[in-house]
Each structure stands twice: as structure tokens, then as C-alpha cells.
């Protein structure tokens, strides 16, 4: 088992690949831990896969994992994770904006007892308006909602202890939220400033359409972090809130009738009925959600699996 697995998702990075291999080689020559490099081809339509396959043939410790079709960064990372065997997993971009020379520092930080070290591109070399500003806002919002404050959720260069990240199920665009997911598995998370180079070769695959996706994913993550294992409690609490509102407005209505006021005759009953219906609706939703958790069968959630830290024998 190698100590470190470097996982690099690749999608149409033909122009970068030659220098990527050079950079990696230069890095591996001086690196003192056993390392494997997993390159995941995310269904590239250019000749990336062919170039990588040829390069890898002469390099022990390198692997290319080819996905049948393009499925996005999260899926590529998940595929790399399936294959990687290292005790520590380091994700990295293929576009040379990350610097492998940062990896030893990240690992040193892990050795201090952290489970996840996130890279922070403090001096980011991207366009300010379309890339840096939305990213800054997103990081703030994600930190605020999940309670996990990392400056740069979007930075791919992150080092994970394999026992934490491997049991997690990565899908959709969840890679952005890995630090938050890991935290809910009890991981100790920290961050450190890493180098960031401007993109000189190839082109970026990110656009502004990310904003809505991030918002939607954020709602999902928040839900998963807080109540994926006991939904009936949370839906139930919500529903009981509505029950209280129902009782309160019913009281108000009775008082209204007794005093003979006119304003309340139609509005308050409508509020009562609405609150009562919401109460039942959320209660039943909670039961349905519990049914789904039940159908998972015997077994713990991925997050709980990721949280088992040591088995001393």
C-alpha cells in the first residue's frame, strides 16, 4: 500500500498533459514517500486519453482510469478514489494551476493529526469578476450554512486521510462540499495557503451557471449533515411547530369571536387550517423519510462509516 495517492481528474487537457507529466516527475524525484498517481480520464473528447496511456506505460506507479463518458469532476474524483490505495489521498487539478511542490507541506499538516488539509489559493490567478468574486461569495455562504469555515472550498488541491474520504458517496457536484461532509463525519479539518499559477495552457471548464447548482447542492448538504439518519425528528419538530401555531391561532380566533370583532372571521380560520394542514403534511413527510432510511436496511450511513477512526486490538 503506497503512502500517498495523487488523484488527478482530467477532462480535455491535451495541451497541459506533457508539462503535467514533467512537473509530476520533477516532484516525484525529490519526494520521499511511496506514491501512486491515478489519472482519471473523464471521457475526454480530445487525445488526452491516448497521450496519458502512452506516457503511463513507461512509468511504474502511474495508472490511468478511463471513464466511458464524461460525467463531471465529482464522478471522476469518485472513480479515482475507488482505485486509489494510498493511506492519504491528494486531489489535484490537471491544468497545472496547482503546484505538486505543496504536497509535502499538506502531508506534514496531516501528520500533525488532521484528517483533511484544504488548499487555499490566497493569491488566486484567475479573472476577478467571473471566477474570483463568485467563488468568494460561494465560500462564505457554504461556510455560513455548513458551519465549516474553509476559505477555498473550490480548490481541488486537498489532502484527505483515506479512511475518512473513502466511505463517502460522492455524486452530483459534491466534491465542493467534501470538507463539510468530512466534518460531519467528525474529521479534523484545517487549511493552508498553496501556490496558484495562472492558466497558460488549455481552457477553463467553469462558467457562471455554477451558482444555481451550488445553492441547490448546499440545501442538500445541509439536510444530509443534519438529519439524514433520523428524519422523523426534524420533520416532526417542524410539524409540531405548526401544531403550536394552529393552537395559538385557534385561541386567537376564539377570543376574537367572544369579543365580536369582524376582522378575524375569515383570516384566522384560513391561518388555522393552513397551519393544521402543514402540521400533518410535515409529520407524514417525516414518516415517509423514515421509511426510506429503513429501506436502506441494516447498515450505517456513509458518514458514520467514515467516522470510525481506530480499531485498537
Amino acid at each position, binding site marked *: 500500500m503506497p503512502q500517498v495517492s495523487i488523484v488527478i481528474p482530467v477532462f480535455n487537457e491535451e495541451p497541459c498533459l506533457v508539462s503535467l507529466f514533467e512537473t509530476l516527475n520533477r516532484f516525484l524525484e525529490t519526494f520521499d514517500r511511496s506514491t501512486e498517481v491515478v489519472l482519471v480520464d473523464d471521457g475526454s473528447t480530445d487525445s488526452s486519453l491516448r497521450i496519458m496511456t502512452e506516457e503511463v506505460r513507461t512509468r511504474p506507479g502511474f495508472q490511468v482510469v478511463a471513464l466511458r463518458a464524461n460525467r463531471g469532476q465529482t464522478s471522476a474524483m469518485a472513480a479515482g478514489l475507488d482505485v486509489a490505495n494510498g493511506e492519504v489521498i491528494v486531489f489535484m487539478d490537471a491544468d497545472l494551476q496547482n503546484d505538486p511542490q505543496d504536497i509535502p507541506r499538506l502531508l506534514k499538516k496531516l501528520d500533525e493529526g488532521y484528517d483533511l488539509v484544504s488548499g487555499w489559493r490566497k493569491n488566486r490567478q484567475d479573472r476577478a469578476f467571473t471566477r474570483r468574486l463568485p467563488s468568494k461569495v460561494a465560500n462564505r455562504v457554504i461556510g455560513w450554512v455548513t458551519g465549516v469555515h474553509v476559505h477555498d472550498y473550490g480548490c481541488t488541491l486537498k489532502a484527505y486521510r483515506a479512511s475518512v474520504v473513502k466511505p463517502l458517496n460522492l455524486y452530483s457536484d459534491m466534491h465542493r462540499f467534501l470538507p463539510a461532509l468530512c466534518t460531519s463525519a467528525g474529521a479534523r479539518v484545517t487549511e493552508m495557503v498553496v501556490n496558484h499559477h495562472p492558466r497558460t495552457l488549455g481552457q477553463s471548464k467553469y462558467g457562471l451557471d455554477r451558482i444555481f447548482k451550488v445553492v441547490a447542492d448546499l440545501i442538500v448538504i445541509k439536510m444530509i449533515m443534519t438529519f439524514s439518519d433520523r428524519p*422523523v425528528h426534524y420533520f416532526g419538530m417542524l410539524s409540531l411547530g405548526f401544531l403550536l401555531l394552529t393552537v395559538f391561532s385557534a385561541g386567537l380566533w376564539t377570543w376574537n369571536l367572544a369579543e365580536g370583532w369582524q376582522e378575524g372571521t375569515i383570516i384566522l380560520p384560513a391561518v388555522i387550517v393552513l397551519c393544521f394542514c402543514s402540521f400533518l403534511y410535515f409529520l407524514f*413527510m*417525516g*414518516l415517509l423519510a423514515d*421509511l426510506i432510511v429503513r429501506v436502506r*436496511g441494516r447498515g450505517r450511513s456513509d458518514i*458514520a462509516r467514515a467516522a*470510525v477512526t481506530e480499531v*485498537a486490538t
Partner: protein
Amino acid sequence: MSEPTLDLSLVVLASNEKPDPALFTEMMGMWRTELEQLGRSYEVIVVDDGVGEGFFDAAQSIAREWGAVRIVRFRRCFGESVALDTAVDMARGAYVVTSTWYTQVDPKGLSKVIGMLDEGTDFVAVRRHPRVDGVMSRLVSWLFNAYTRWITKVEIYDLNCAFRAFRKEVVEELHFHGDLFRFISVLAVQKGFRVKEIPMQHVREEGPSTVLRPGLYVRRFLDILSLFFLMKFTRKPLRFFGLVGFGFLSVGFAICLWMLYVRLVIGHALSDRPMLVLGIFLVVLGIIVASIGLIGEIIIFTQGRDLRDYHIDSIVEGRDRSDEEESDE
């Protein structure tokens, strides 16, 4: 799920509170005496559900001098369901005995409990009786147990005693999540296992002063509601949601018809009739609740392959005459 290689696994759970290492060490000593006397092969699994350094250190120092001890540690607290589930997965014993980190009942009861399992009981629950804790906590406990008995119709008198003994495969067949671990004896009864509850002298006041917040009661209440629903309707959600939804729908429909009658035949204006709002809302709610039931059915139909509600106790195979003759020879 591998074949058990030992006779017995003792699982010690520490969850949701700050354990006192001294009490824990003392209890482990008592267990050790008991387990050695029993004369069977055993192991001890200590689960540290993210309860802090003091406990883990104590467990480690016990493990250093007692080779049978294994420790599992969670990075943060996940609750007893997850802890128990993990421990049962790891257990190598044919029987599993669970305990809290402090002495609830005297470990001397172990040999009796094991004897019952030997005689064919699948699950032995323990009732702390007579109890030694305060009137208030006894009252709360009694209410909780009586309410559960009433809802589930299962005659178990003490759900909260953590001393339980069962065959490993029993819990492997049960599904519990959230706070349902409390009800595993009830779930085992429902699965058709032979469950017995025996009284044992209660030794110590329940943990170090458990503070019960009102939110906790609401959660317990919701747990039991969910337990009732899952026990009765897991395999047929539409029976439940459909009935409730149909009820709302018909009441709402009746109200709307009446309103129509009032408007068309009697000729009153409806603009200040709250009844109309109620009728319309009930119709909508009825439709939504019934659809929730339909979604439930789809989930069960597509995902519920492994949800068996029966348990094959034994299979008796008829033997051919000729086989018998052969074996006689």
C-alpha cells in the same frame, strides 16, 4: 457476515455522556472476573462514541493488560444505534452481550443469561427490578414503557436497560436507525424471535445525572410514532397514508358539497365562510397524503427486496428411504 469464531462477544457502549473513567475501569474488572469464570472463549469490544479523551485512555490502558479487549472509536458522537450496529458487525462471538460503561445491573447475571441463550432463547432483555433510582426518573421510565407497550402491544417492561444478550444473527436481521436501538427487543419480538425479559437487581443510579430536556420527550414521542408506523406499515405504506388521505379527502369533499348546496340552493354568499377554506384545504391535504403513500409504495417495490417480514425458524427435509439404508450400512 463471517461465521462466529468465539462463544461470546461483550460489547461495552459509551455514548452521549461524559463517562467517568474510574467507574468504567471498575466495571471492566467485574466483567473480567465474570467472563473468566464462565469458561468460554470471549472477546470484549469497547465502543467509544466520540465521548472524549479520558474514556479512551482508560480503555486503552485496560486493553494493554487484557488481550481480549478491542476498541472502536468514532470521531464524533453518532448515537447508540450506530455504535451498536458497528459493534455487532465486528463481533466474532456467537452470542453478543451489551452493557453500558457503568454498572447498571450486576455482571453476575451473565451466567444466567447465557444459560437462557443456550436453552434456545434468541434475545434476553433485562428488566431493572427492583430499581434504585429516584421517583421522578422511575415515573418517566414507567410512562415511556407503558406507552410503548400500549402502542406496540409487546410485553417488555424496561426498554432502557442496556444489558441485553442475544444471538449475533438476531441483531443482524433487525433494522434500527436513529434512536430505534432502544426498541430492539420490540423489533426482535416483531420479527418472531424468542424474546424473554428477566428481572435483575438494579445496582446504580442511572449514569451521572442525565438531564432530560423537554425536546427529548418530543423526540421519544416521535420515535414511538415512527416505530409504530414502521412495524405496521413498512411493507404497505399506502394502507396507512391512503386511509388517512382518503379520510381527509372525503371530509373535505363533503364540506365542499355542503358549501355548494348552501350557495346554489339556499343562495347565501360564501365570501365570509371559513368552512369553504377548510373544505378546500382538506381536499388538497388528502390528495397529498395519499400521494405520499404512493411514493412509499414505489420505494418499497423498487428497493424493498431485502425487507423480509418473516423469519425461517427451521427447515425439516424429508429423507429418502434409500439414503437411510445407505447410512445404516
